[in-house]
Structures are given as C-alpha cells and as structure tokens.
C-alpha cells in the first residue's frame, strides 16, 4: 500500500474515512434508537431497513469507510511493533486483503438482503 502511495496520502484517507464514518454511524444509531432498540432488531424490521435503498447505501458506505479506517489503523500498529521488509509487506498486503474480504462479505449481506434474497 505505502509503496504505491505516500504515507501522507494514506493518512488523509485515514482521517477522511473517520470523519465521514462518524456521520454515518450517527445515522445508523439514530435509526435503531428511533425505532425502539428491541423492536428495531426484529427480523422483519431489519429486512425492511435493508430494503430501503438510501439506508442500504448508508450501510454499504459505512462498511467501506470503517473497513478502510480500521484495517489501516491495524496496519499502523502492527508496523510499529516489528520491522523488516518481509514482515512489513506481509502486514501491509495482509491488511489490504482482510479489508477487501470483509467489504466483500459485508456487501454480500447488504446486496442480498436489500434485493429480498432472504
């Protein structure tokens, strides 16, 4: 990641994903709280949420933003714990792969649930 991008660009993405994700998380929590916490977790209620396209877009955006921010944060911590070319490349590409897998796995749920494939 950092061999193709300057570290300052990565950090700009890190800050930006955090700020935008905070906004979406607030929306996500407000939706749950305004519906009543227990009621909002009913199966039918959750499926109805997913079928609302704007809300599904919020969930997808949140998934991408938090994954990017979270795995970059993990990469930063792991790179400070140990150094060495092989280890650093393994951590960098490992985090990138984990991020892509998590986004793909979460997107599968969002897409299938919003399309009614449940």
């Amino acid at each position, binding site marked *: 990641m950092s061999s193709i991008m300057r*570290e300052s660009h990565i950090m700009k993405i890190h800050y930006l994903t955090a700020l935008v994700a905070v906004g979406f998380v607030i929306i996500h929590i407000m939706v749950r709280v305004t519906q009543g916490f227990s009621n909002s977790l009913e199966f039918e209620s959750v499926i109805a949420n997913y079928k609302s396209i704007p809300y599904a877009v919020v969930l997808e955006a949140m998934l991408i933003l938090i994954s990017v921010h979270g795995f970059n944060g993990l990469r930063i911590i792991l790179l400070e714990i140990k150094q060495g070319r092989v280890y650093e490349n393994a951590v960098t590409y490992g985090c990138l792969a984990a991020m892509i897998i998590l986004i793909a796995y979460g997107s599968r749920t969002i897409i299938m649930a919003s399309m009614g494939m449940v």
Partner: protein
Amino acid sequence: MTKGGALPKGFESPSDLGSQEKYEEVKPSSKTMTLRISKFNPDKDHAPTFLEFPVSYEKWTTVLDAILEAKNYHDHSIGVRYSCRQAMCGSCGMNINGKPRLACFTKISELDSDVVTVEPMNNFPLIRDLVVGFERMFSTHKRIKPYIIREDSEISSGTKEFLQTPEDVEKYIQFSSCIKCGLCNSACPTMAADSTFIGPQGLAQAYRYIADNRDQGKDERLKIIDERHGIWGCHFAGSCSQVCPKGVDPAMGIQLLRGYLLGYRK
C-alpha cells in the same frame, strides 16, 4: 558536595566575619537517601545488577553530584557520561526513578523519594552502566539535513547576511534549543518498539529548519519524513515534550510539521 552547611574559607559574607562561633551553631540540613545505580557491561555480564550507596544531599544536590560521589569514593568503575553539568551538553541523560531526565538538571530534593534509582535510557543501545550509544540518533539527525539549504550563500550575496525579523526568528528559535540529549526519543512510545522511526528529536529538527525562512530545503525534508517510519509514526502522546529539559516541545514541532504535509501550511 558541602556536607556541613558552612561556607568554604574565603566565602564568608562580611557580616559573618568574626562570628565563626555563631556559624558553627547552624545545623547541617543534609538528608540521606539511597542511590541505586544500574551496573551492566554487555561484554561481560549476563544481567544488570544494582549497586546501592547511601548518599547525603542538600537542597541543591543534583543526581549527577550523587553519582559522581559514588564513583569517586565508592566504586571507580561506574560508567557515566557527563560534561558541562549545566544542561547544555546533553551528555548525562538517564532514567531517574523510571523517567528519562538529565542527571545534572535533576535535584534529588525534587524527586521526593528516599531511594533514587538510576538506569541507562531506554530505546538506546547500551554501552556500559549508565552510558548509551547515540549513533542512531545522530545519523537520523543528519538524515533530516540539519542545516540551511539554499543555492546562494551569505558570502556571495550582495547583502552579505540574510536578515530576519524577530517574528521570523520566533518561528523556529524554540526548536533550535535542542541539545540532542535523547530524552525525547527515550520517552516516545513509538520509539519503544519501532527502532526505524525517525523519532521526536529528528522530526522537531526537521521543523526547525523548514520553519526558518532562510531555508529552501522544505521539499527535500518533507520527502524524507513522509515515509512509513516517518512523521506519521507520531501519535501525539506528548511524552517527548514532557521530558524535554530545554522547552523544545518536540510534539508541537511535529504537529506543525504535519500541517505542511496535510496542506494547511505552505
């Protein structure tokens, strides 16, 4: 170290002359504490041991005074590096009661403890006892190009000197007080695990030269620090600024330096 509390001969104040009897009545204010000194020679020893010495001290006695008393009168083999004894040379940095400090700048009375433990600074390679190696810090310091970079020079310039206003000087003067004692690098949590990190000392010096309006090497330095183990390894824990004995405030310099990379400063 003055043990009795009486002034040396020739230093009496005029009013005291002829009243020697009265002077002798003054009780010595010395207290005693235990000085624990870490002894370890990586070439010979397997593990560090602590030597303990009872040392009497006055309000003004520094930790370096106590170490030198132990070295002079108890154990000549204690390895300690010092020079100026006035927080100017940056030689006597060590861990004093768990925190990096200058031994010559730390009074025993300030520590408020009956036991003073001195160890070599963390995050530096140990040479012997209280002496650590500064090679890496100095090479990192050199890496950030700690000098004014510009094409012309004061000799060739028509004005013969590069004039600066007091405001121009204020922008960097704080950071030019660095004595390269290494306390900031020793306190830094990133340096604790990442030995390739530039460190607060080098980064603060990068800011010192970039903020200097005579300098034209900003882009060169920003390129050096904007890498994997560069400026972004700082997470603003502020420990460097807390231990700096000269008020350099490296944490501030690093955050200001980041402004250039984030586009807030030109």
